[in-house]
């Protein structure tokens, strides 16, 4: 049985989650401020990927976003800000031995720059980049008009009630 001792710095950077062999790992905070996870497998290698959640890529994105827009009083109290559709993509293969130590540092997303640094003995990085997701940007732009209409209707309703 091979064991991967994973240590992660800034694990929730860019709203992304670390996946080992296609499954999101549950990290535990260590005393040094890093996050740790121990993964055991019979395989000789393990794939590391990043899963990034974006509400604009879900099935009911249009209605969900409008719902949040209304309940957060025209988006004023909404904490979610999409960084211009910036998406991270990481795909790496770590060769395992009986006990393999691995440190992953997730970096702040910038266009055409690596999203993470992987420090381990034997690693094959297939993809490690940040790029702008045009689909997210298109959907964000598509929401501008409905939001303006909602604001206009609300203002008109308010005036009709007050005066």
């Amino acid at each position, binding site marked *: 049985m091979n064991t991967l001792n994973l240590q992660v710095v800034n694990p929730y950077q860019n*709203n992304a*989650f670390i996946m080992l062999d296609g499954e*999101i790992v549950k990290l535990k905070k260590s005393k040094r401020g890093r996050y740790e996870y121990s993964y055991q497998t019979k395989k000789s290698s393990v794939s590391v990927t990043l*899963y990034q*959640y974006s*509400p604009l890529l*879900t099935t009911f994105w249009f209605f*969900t976003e409008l719902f*949040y827009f209304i*309940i*957060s*009083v025209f988006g*004023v*109290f*909404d*904490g*979610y800000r999409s960084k211009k559709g910036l998406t991270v993509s990481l795909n790496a293969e770590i060769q395992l031995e009986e006990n393999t130590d691995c440190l992953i540092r997730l970096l702040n997303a910038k266009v055409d720059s690596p999203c993470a640094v992987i420090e381990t003995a034997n690693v094959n990085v297939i993809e490690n980049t940040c790029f702008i997701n045009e689909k997210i940007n298109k959907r964000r732009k598509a929401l501008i008009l409905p939001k303006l209409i909602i604001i206009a209707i609300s203002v008109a309703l308010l005036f009709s009630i007050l005066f």
Partner: protein
Amino acid sequence: MNIKLKSNLTRIGVISSNLSIACYIYTITALLSALLIAILPIFLFFIWVIVIVFTLGLIFLNPDFISFSDSILSGVEQQGNIVTALYNSIPEALVIGVILTVLSIILFCFEPTGRKRPARLAVTITLSVFAILILLILKYGGQS
């Protein structure tokens, strides 16, 4: 827990937390405004007394100052005591509360990082003081 559900719950939590902060700011500013409006006429009276001491002749020759001081004095007399004054100032305080809450929300929106919090606080305080002063001028300035 499902990532999608967790993210949605977190988002709702953030929205409700921000709303509660806004309500908190509103309540505090409304209460402070009520207190300030209630006690300020008395302070204005004392300030005016000091002004008299230093610029006696000038003030008594200026009819505007005399009428303004009369209006302040009559306002305090009419209200009786601070508790009554506090009660009477509640409508204005609520208006100030709304103004300050809107200002705070605007500042919250344009805050890019947590580092600029002291600057935001300073701007909020300055704007709050200006809002209170404008409302006081509107209330008491018009009586002269």
